[in-house]
């Protein structure tokens, strides 16, 4: 069944199973574009990035914003309970989100209990014509409760793919797809047209991935050698040469001039991801939305501490390739002792200047000069430019650096991230992103879901490094 034949608004309670790249977002856009009622359709998804991505798609499709209300499940839950604090009877503290790990679960529980009690049913019926929930496989149990009770009030259609459920970690139990989701939201249809690959002229790859999905879903392995030649490449990586082999894979040339490459490394090893980004020409990392390293630097950085220069240089080294910090330190030492034979370079002068008069402004100048050194390349641009931005905000003296960093983080969380042409990350970080080529550097320890998500990121080409051609 093609997307045109499915109207999500006709589904009053059900699931649309949507394998990767099969036109799920298009389906949502079509439903909303065809919506003419005075009441909007409520569209919920899981992450702010998801909201930003979906809004972008809807804007491009020309869907009038009056046709829908788009939010994360958690964002909507916060709005709901804060509008009816008396009926919800939650502790007002939880809305401050001081301890997210404690507060979000409390918010979700308060929200589904409020929905269950029926106090707001009439209001919701007046507010929305329909409910559509995207990425439903990522729903945690309490989020599923929220949608469950909403579905007793509003006609509800959920879209998702159990084979793309990769968010079940750290006590975030996902709703069981078969036991919980499909019993309440019966599967209405499963999408079977690999639009992403068809549109890229590689439908054969798309069909092969659908077959691979069936095998992985059935608990079987996939033989990479069965892939369509020219679209699926298996590169054997075995010690002791495995690192060089993986680096070679990371350098895969995209089939088109402006094609993008997603490089998927070990999710548990951030250092390895950064390392590959550093060593692969033109590659940069995709960072987690919490921008941990930005926050860490801005929290601990103090221009007046004796180690302030050390902190700046350590940061520079962690986000740029070829900065040559060891050499720089040696030169600074001889310069300050007056034993240096060569005059200081521009960057060296900046560093000396910072030592004499440490300030945020000189720190910014130093970082900019280091960036301008020959052969230097920023491989973690989100962190580097984020730090610069925070330093600039704070250098006006109006807000502390930590606060400036927090604003940078929230801004980037809302705006989403521009995808570099060659991006290094993990399945978690790259989920929802699309490129022409997807490169899996290591399949070791990947679950069937992680494997499927990683394999489906590229619309024209898939490159996999592994010890064996049989994966999963």
């Amino acid at each position, binding site marked *: 069944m093609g997307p045109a034949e499915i109207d999500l608004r006709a589904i009053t309670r059900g699931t649309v199973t949507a394998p990767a790249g099969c036109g799920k977002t298009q389906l949502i856009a079509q439903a909303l574009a065809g919506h003419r009622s005075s009441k909007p359709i409520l569209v919920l998804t899981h992450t702010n990035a998801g909201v930003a991505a979906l809004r972008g798609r809807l804007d491009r499709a020309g869907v009038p914003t009056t046709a829908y209300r788009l939010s994360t499940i958690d964002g909507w839950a916060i709005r709901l309970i804060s*509008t009816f*604090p008396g009926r919800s009877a939650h502790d007002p503290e939880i809305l401050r989100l001081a301890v997210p790990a404690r507060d979000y679960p409390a918010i979700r529980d308060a929200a589904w209990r409020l929905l269950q009690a029926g106090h707001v049913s009439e*209001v919701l*019926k*007046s507010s929305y014509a329909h409910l559509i929930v995207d990425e439903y496989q990522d729903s945690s149990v309490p989020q599923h409760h929220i949608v469950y009770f909403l579905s007793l009030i509003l006609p509800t259609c959920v879209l998702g793919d159990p084979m793309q459920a990769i968010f079940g970690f750290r006590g975030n139990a996902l709703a069981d797809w078969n036991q919980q989701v499909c019993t309440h939201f019966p599967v209405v249809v499963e999408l079977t047209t690999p639009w992403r690959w068809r549109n890229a002229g590689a439908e054969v790859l798309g069909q092969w991935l659908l077959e691979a999905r069936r095998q992985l879903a059935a608990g079987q392995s996939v033989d990479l050698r069965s892939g369509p030649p020219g679209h699926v490449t298996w590169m054997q990586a075995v010690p002791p040469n495995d690192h060089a082999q993986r680096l070679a894979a990371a350098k895969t040339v995209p089939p088109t001039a402006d094609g993008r490459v997603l490089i998927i490394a070990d999710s548990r090893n951030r250092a390895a991801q950064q390392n590959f980004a550093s060593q692969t020409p033109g590659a940069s990392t995709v960072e987690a939305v919490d921008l941990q390293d930005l926050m860490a630097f801005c929290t601990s950085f103090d221009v007046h501490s004796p180690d302030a220069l050390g902190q700046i240089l350590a940061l520079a080294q962690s986000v740029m390739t070829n900065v040559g910090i060891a050499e720089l330190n040696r030169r600074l030492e001889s310069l300050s002792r007056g034993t240096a034979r060569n005059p200081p370079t521009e960057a060296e002068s900046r560093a000396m200047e910072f030592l004499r008069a440490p300030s945020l402004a000189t720190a910014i100048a130093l970082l900019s000069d280091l960036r301008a050194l020959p052969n230097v390349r920023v491989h973690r641009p989100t962190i580097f430019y984020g730090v610069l931005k925070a330093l600039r905000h704070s250098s006006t003296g109006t807000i502390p650096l930590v606060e400036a960093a927090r604003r940078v983080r929230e801004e980037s969380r809302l705006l989403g991230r521009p995808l570099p042409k060659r991006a290094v990350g993990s399945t978690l970080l790259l989920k929802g992103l699309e490129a022409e080529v997807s490169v899996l550097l290591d399949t070791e320890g990947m679950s069937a879901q992680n494997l499927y998500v990683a394999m489906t990121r590229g619309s024209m080409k898939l490159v996999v490094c592994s010890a064996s051609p049989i994966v999963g």
Partner: protein
Amino acid sequence: MARIRKIEIANFRGIQQLAWCPAPGINCLIGPGDSGKSTVLDSIDLCLGARRNVQFSDADFFGLDITTPISITLTLGDLDDSLRTLESFGAFLRGYHATTGAVEDEPSALAEVVLCLNLTVASDLEPSWTLVSDRAAQQGIVKTLAWKDRVALAPTRIGALADFNLGWQRGSVLNRISEERADASAALIKAARDARSSFGDQAEQQLGEALGIVTTTAQELGVHIGAKARALLDSHSVSFGGGTISLHSEGGIPLRSLGVGSTRVLVAGLQRKAASQASIVLSDELEYGLEPHRIARFLGSLGAKEAAPMQVFLTTHSPVALRELSGGQLFVLRRCANGHEARLVGADDGIQSTIRVYPEAFLAGSVIVCEGASEIGLLRGLDLYRLDQGSISLAALAVALVDCGGGDADRPYARAGAFQALGYRVMVVRDDDKKPTPAIEQAFVHNGGTVVAYRAGRALEDELFGSLTPAACQKLINFGYDLHGDLIHEHLRTVSNNTLTVQAVWDEIQTTGALSVAHRATLGQAARTRKAGWFKSISWMEDVARTIVAPDLHQCNQGFRALVDQVFEWAAHGPR
């Protein structure tokens, strides 16, 4: 559409406090003059109406005290979906419990979703319309209704000048009965041009001299105006504002020249058609300009006989209007110790039939509940005699008489109690041959009621024959004879076991100039023979009272006279 679930008024004109939960359909306010009925209608109009500027003055403040703000809050239910969305109105949506009239700050599964719209005017006289809820106030959220929502909610006022609604002006009901809009602009502009060109030549002939002078002067002064000046219709003077288009009859006569009554009936009918969009109608003095049959039509078109197709707020002083309404549509508005109260007349205790038969009673200040037709007739007759003598009539004293139609001795108290509960001053006039339950009568008296009962076991006929002078008693017998002929001889023979005749009574009075107590009792008994009472109809007793009883009062038994005096004394000292 929306319905007003609750009206709360504070410090507005004559009303210091009022909290009233009106009915979803017709709400007809009755009550003594100056009790604030029109103020209630004005409150609704001012709070809910779509007006950009309303002038308030110090006189609009209760007791002219401008330090206490005017506050009018309307709780609105039956809201359109667009007025109760989470995104736009979330923080202001509240819950209303119809059974208790309570408004809770947040919606609940057991309550209706409502909005509270408040109009506040403080000493600066600047009105401010806002939605209110406790939680929004706590969080400092302020919200007003959008103009389009206010236009949609605005009530239609069918006032004395209802002809406003007979053109397509802004706010006219005509704009609500359909979405069509006439676009006259193009046609009017063309007409204006045509008028301009066809008038041009005429003007030149009529104003030739002046034009000639202008032309010459301009040429002398070198002001270039061409060969000659022309007189044309000024295009700006041929313009048409809003409301250019209005309703006309087939003959082309504007409908606004219809009589007041026709206009009002028509507008009410149109409003009824527009009820799906705007459901609240206000009409002060609904009977204004209407004949009795048109009052019925007017109320009918407002949905008086249907299941609340729209919410209507009325005031009336017309018994004809009352007769067309049910107790569930009538509210008595009264000033009480702590503010105003609007009490539902309701349909209990046979009050509905009282509305039908004695609508005047609800418009009076004091009510005399009479046990039966005899008492009604007696009081009417006495009243007419007093009127002839130059006294003020009961009607002018705002006293109404209500007939209970006899029957059970407790019945008058049920009816009297209903009036009492509505705040009326009530008297019961009853006979004493069948006594009411003492506790019931005591409760009535305890609540401020007054009882006038005939003395020891007597019915009215016993009192009359027992109290009036012998001459008057003769007149009573003659009156009975004229009505019933020989039947009254029979009655007398029967009750006296053939021991007393009319002739014997005549002889007794003739010879002794008096009438014995025993004979008086026998006459009384005969006169109230079951199902054949000599004076048992309102008009018979009215005649008896007017022509026989009243003229005899000054010389008859003082105990009976005292009873009659008590009734008229009470009547003279009521609220007007």
